[in-house]
């Protein structure tokens, strides 16, 4: 059996335009590897879920092997170096996973398709990795990591809302690293193995190359990936407010001047009230709360004449509505800074009107 994509094999009778996009041999390789990848990914998925349950979290820990899902698409993308082969392989692999009983149902098709699309981004060398080019290898590893970590975002959209950003960031980085290891490094090794076995000719055999030369060659790639991982971790952990400042909230809707409210800009308007939280199960005794009245915050935004209500929206999606005129007249309704963001203190209302982590004041 000769190399997969470079040799022209006589006897191919296809003649239509789309046949030139992928030869029968490339198509069949894509079909069969997607099948194998889909079948094995289902079980990698089970394994990941078992790791999650063993650790006691619904998701996250299993991301340590997330790269194994992308490994197959990477392999196909290299062996079938045609535009769209990554997306097609991702789609087909996703369908195979669904048909073989993935616990995520049709969502897995979308996850797999997006992973394939990311690997199709043109910055990946169309000919796959080359041991001669560090940049190509960097692209290879980087996109494998990105593709692997994309599943975290997609699953977030479908199954989770309001999960702490720090947790999401950490498991995204975990999936990214897994992608680099399994879909980058391991896929590289696999291609070298296939080359040695005479099945492909993408990678020149590196027999005879000393270990020190191998390490030296890989140093820039390793340094770059390390920099990315450390940088991302620092970004997520130390500069978390880059994603969303918990001590600010948007004032939007039917107002003349929508703006981003920040307590520091209103320090001279701060008032202190005594309020008591009385809920069915919660009771906070009378306490001093210092903050800015909602009427002051809304006054700066200048509600339009037709506005008649305000919706206070929290980070977790919770919202509560008030009559606009009542809010403008209320001197015991304020936003105060707590240790986890802005809280709405509603001195004249029951406990459910007290909102934690306020992110938006929507006038309607």
């Amino acid at each position, binding site marked *: *059996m000769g190399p*997969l994509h470079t040799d022209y*094999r006589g*006897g*191919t*009778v*296809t003649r239509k335009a789309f046949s030139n996009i992928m030869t*029968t041999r490339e*198509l*069949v390789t*894509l*079909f*069969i*590897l*997607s*099948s*194998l990848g*889909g*079948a*094995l990914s289902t*079980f990698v998925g*089970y394994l990941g879920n078992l790791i999650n*349950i063993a650790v006691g*979290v*619904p998701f996250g820990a299993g991301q340590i092997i997330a790269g194994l899902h992308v490994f197959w698409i990477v392999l196909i993308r290299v062996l079938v170096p045609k535009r769209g082969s990554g997306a*097609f392989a991702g789609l*087909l692999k996703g*369908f*195979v996973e*669904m*048909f*073989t009983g*993935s*616990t*995520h*149902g*049709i*969502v897995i098709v979308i996850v797999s398709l997006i992973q394939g699309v990311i690997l199709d981004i043109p910055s990946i060398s169309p000919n796959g990795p080359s041991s001669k080019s560090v940049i190509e290898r960097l692209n290879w590893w980087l996109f494998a990591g990105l593709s692997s970590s994309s599943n975290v975002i997609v699953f977030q959209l*479908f*199954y*989770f809302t*309001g*999960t*702490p950003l720090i947790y999401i960031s950490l498991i995204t980085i975990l999936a990214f690293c897994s992608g680099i290891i399994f879909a980058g490094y*391991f896929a590289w*090794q*696999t291609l070298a*193995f*296939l080359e040695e*076995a005479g*099945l492909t000719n993408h990678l020149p055999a590196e027999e005879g190359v000393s270990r020190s030369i191998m390490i030296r060659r890989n140093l820039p790639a390793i340094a770059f990936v390390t920099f990315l991982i450390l940088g991302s971790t620092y970004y997520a952990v130390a500069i978390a407010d880059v994603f969303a400042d918990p001590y600010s909230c948007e004032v939007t809707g039917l107002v003349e001047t929508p703006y981003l409210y920040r307590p520091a800009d209103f320090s001279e308007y701060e008032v202190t009230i005594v309020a008591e939280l009385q*809920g*069915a*199960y*919660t009771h906070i005794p009378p306490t001093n709360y210092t903050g800015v009245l909602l009427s002051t915050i809304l006054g700066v935004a200048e509600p339009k004449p037709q506005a008649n209500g305000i919706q206070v929206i929290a980070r*977790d*999606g919770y919202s509560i509505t008030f009559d606009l005129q009542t809010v403008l007249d209320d001197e015991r309704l304020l936003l105060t800074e707590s240790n986890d963001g802005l809280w709405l203190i509603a001195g004249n209302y029951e*406990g*459910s009107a007290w909102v934690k*982590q306020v992110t938006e004041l929507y006038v309607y």
Partner: protein
Amino acid sequence: MASRIGFMDVKSPVHQLHPLTKLWMLLTLNTSIILYQNGAFGLLVLSVLVLTFRLAKVSLARLTRKMRFILVFSILLFIVQVLVTTNGTVFLYLIPRIGQVGPALPVTDYGISRGVSIMLRFLVIVLSSMLFVATTDPTLLSYALTDIGIPYRYAFGLVVALRFLPLFDQENETVRMAQHSRGIYPEVGGLHKILRTIRYTFFPLLVSALMKAESLSLSMDGRGFGYQDTRTYLRRPTWRHRDTAVCFLMTMILAGVILAILGLLPQFLSV
């Protein structure tokens, strides 16, 4: 790889629907449940889904192990949503006040309603996919895809991919036994061992798969695969009036959901 849910060839009204009708049902149902996050709507859809399983003569009891896993996962999803949602009316604290410590981890009405909504969404997505898989012949689905303009060279991929699965099961078992006979067992202690275990499993299967790809493509080329724009079929799915009716109904449901989200549905029609 051996125990998996797959197409169950029984005679039922659901099985007799056109594969594209079932695909449309799956897409509209999942889109609806994702767009409209409402516990009552989720419960309604889930109930209809369970009834459809009965109508399709597909027993969920046969999938005990898988169902157990799905239920455990959905409960975990519910717990996480309750824990991360602190707003709303507090029902109780998981960690009550003990002296100066606590209370912490409040359980609120909003947290519970959100947890239920997400849990139902997960169950609907997974169960509807399982129903689709159990009642849809993948070969017919592949052929049906050509009806909506997908070239048969590409639609054929699903047939090939699924046709090869039993073969990979067999290969995997052979590789496993060959390794055991040589004293090689899977090891997971550390990254290096995990990689070695994966290499031992993946490489033989990969070589075998590539060799199969070679022989199959030769065979397909020899039979003129791709020579014509169209091809002939031994079996073809038939579109009936009931397919039109079901598609219309599902489209109406999706439209209703969109109207409800936009607040354009009369209150008495909202779930």
